[in-house]
């Protein structure tokens, strides 16, 4: 019986001593490393099947991410036109340059105006003939048909009501012919962008759900093919956490690979589109070029993939692993 008492104290001591806890922590880490390496090796053992899984996940992730990148680029492009909208105040033909300048100062002094630029009719004509390509036609004109213009930028905090009040007050000022403020198209664009964002979000949520389900199914198959191993592990005293660990790592690797595939797909698509976009932008006298995912974007995709992989594996493990009990 002394042997049994010895064993009992040894075992009791084991759960208390600090050195033993550290050993256990080390062993736990070791098993994590082992599982991670083993699962990765198993994933790489079947390269074609794994590649297909990665591609499926990659495409499902690349779609919403690609759309989002496109949307961000459009947003960046339109930022220059964003509010505060500029108003063009056309002056009457008989207003002199001095009067125009006085009006500029007068408008500038208003609290609801940020800045005013005076564009004289001569300068406007010169700019028009330079940009339009109708220089010959302009040169043949007897008199300048363009009016002087004040380009008024409203204060940035100004509300829509404030803008229309400002517009009316300037329109009724003596010497002003017309105030043009075309915001309708800007509003339409903004609403289109909101719509686009919601659409991307909806598509993204659905595809992410799809990715989790795909991974869950892949892990379910892995669990089925290793049923005997799970039974043996449980028979010799492996906890559920122990049995589950390799499958969670398998999910992680599938997800990380899928995220990487998505990053590569999006980057490839952007690279493919970059040249035509540059040419098109050049035609519009713009130096706009596409903004890619960047290293951080790809890294985020890989992390997202990993998290989704873990989620899918959890789903499968929670549903299927607990049902495998030794019989």
């Amino acid at each position, binding site marked *: *019986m002394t*042997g*049994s008492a010895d*064993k009992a104290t040894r075992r009791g001591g084991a759960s208390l001593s600090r050195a033993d806890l550290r*050993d*256990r922590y*080390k*062993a*736990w880490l*070791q*098993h994590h490393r*082992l599982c991670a390496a083993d699962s990765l090796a198993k994933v790489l053992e079947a390269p074609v099947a794994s590649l297909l899984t990665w591609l499926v996940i990659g495409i499902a992730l690349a779609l919403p991410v690609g759309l989002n990148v496109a949307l961000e680029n459009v947003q960046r492009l339109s930022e220059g036109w964003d509010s505060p909208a500029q108003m063009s105040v056309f002056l009457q033909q008989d207003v002199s340059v001095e009067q125009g300048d006085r009006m500029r100062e007068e408008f500038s002094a208003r609290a609801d105006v940020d800045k005013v630029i005076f564009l004289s009719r001569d300068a406007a004509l010169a700019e028009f003939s330079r940009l339009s390509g109708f220089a010959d036609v302009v040169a043949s004109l007897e008199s300048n048909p363009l009016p002087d213009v004040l380009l008024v930028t409203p204060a940035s905090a100004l509300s829509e009501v404030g803008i229309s009040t400002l517009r009316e007050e300037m329109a009724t000022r003596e010497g002003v012919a017309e105030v043009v403020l075309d915001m309708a198209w800007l509003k339409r664009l903004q609403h289109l962008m909101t719509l686009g964002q919601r659409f991307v979000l909806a598509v993204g949520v659905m595809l992410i759900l799809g990715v989790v389900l795909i991974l869950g199914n892949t892990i379910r198959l892995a669990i089925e093919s290793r049923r*005997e*191993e799970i*039974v*043996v*592990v*449980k*028979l*010799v*005293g*492996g*906890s*559920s956490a*122990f049995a589950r660990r390799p499958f969670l790592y398998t999910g992680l690797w599938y997800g990380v690979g899928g995220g990487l595939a998505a990053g590569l797909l999006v980057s490839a698509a952007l690279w493919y589109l970059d040249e035509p976009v540059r040419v098109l932008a050049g035609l519009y006298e713009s130096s706009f070029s596409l903004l890619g995912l960047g290293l951080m974007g790809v890294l985020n995709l890989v992390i997202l993939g990993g998290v989704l992989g873990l989620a899918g594996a959890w789903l499968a493990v929670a549903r299927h692993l607990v049902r495998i*009990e*030794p*019989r």
Partner: protein
Amino acid sequence: MISFDRVTKRYEAGHDALREVSFDIEKDELVFLTGHSGAGKSTLLRLIMLMDRPTRGQVTIDGRNLSSVGKRAIPAHRRGIGVVFQNHRLLFDRTVFDNVALPLIIAGYDHREIGRRVRAALDKVGLLRHEHAMPLSLSGGEQQRVGIARAVVGRPNILLADEPTGNLDPELSAEIMRLFEAFNQVGVTVLIASHDLVLISRLHHRILTLKDGRLISGASGPGDAL
């Protein structure tokens, strides 16, 4: 060490696998459990392993009433018991070494300690030179010895075996039984389910006999004499 107190196990179909079974196995004892197939041998072992719970009655292992062992404590309970299965239950995609190491990896031993203990266990069953072999390249008897090495590598207090000689010829069977006796001599409580009456009656150990779920002989062990 192993104590059954009026244990009944009834399955859903209304069939009683065990009826009012009571016995005590002392520490250091080696006991055989016999009976026809379907007499309840496997059910009895399953109750000790907590693969099943009794319908009525108490099972006490190493002083602990198993009804107090919750679902989460089952793995720890199983780590204290070594089990040898009739069909070996080895993992065929791993080497002999990795198969034997599994309980130690689960228990969280350091890899040097694992290497030392696995080799010691393989040495005891005479398979040290096969540590890097795959189980399928071994004979049935050798596979069973790998299973025994895996059962004892964690140095359990209790060793259970379910028909460990089921598919072996008499000579190999006797060899396996000698191994169990050797473990018993170093203080392990051993319970072996076997229907090989010719073999076990030669070995002069207590024999529990089950018939239709009832214990018909062997209930009183040396413990009762004290």
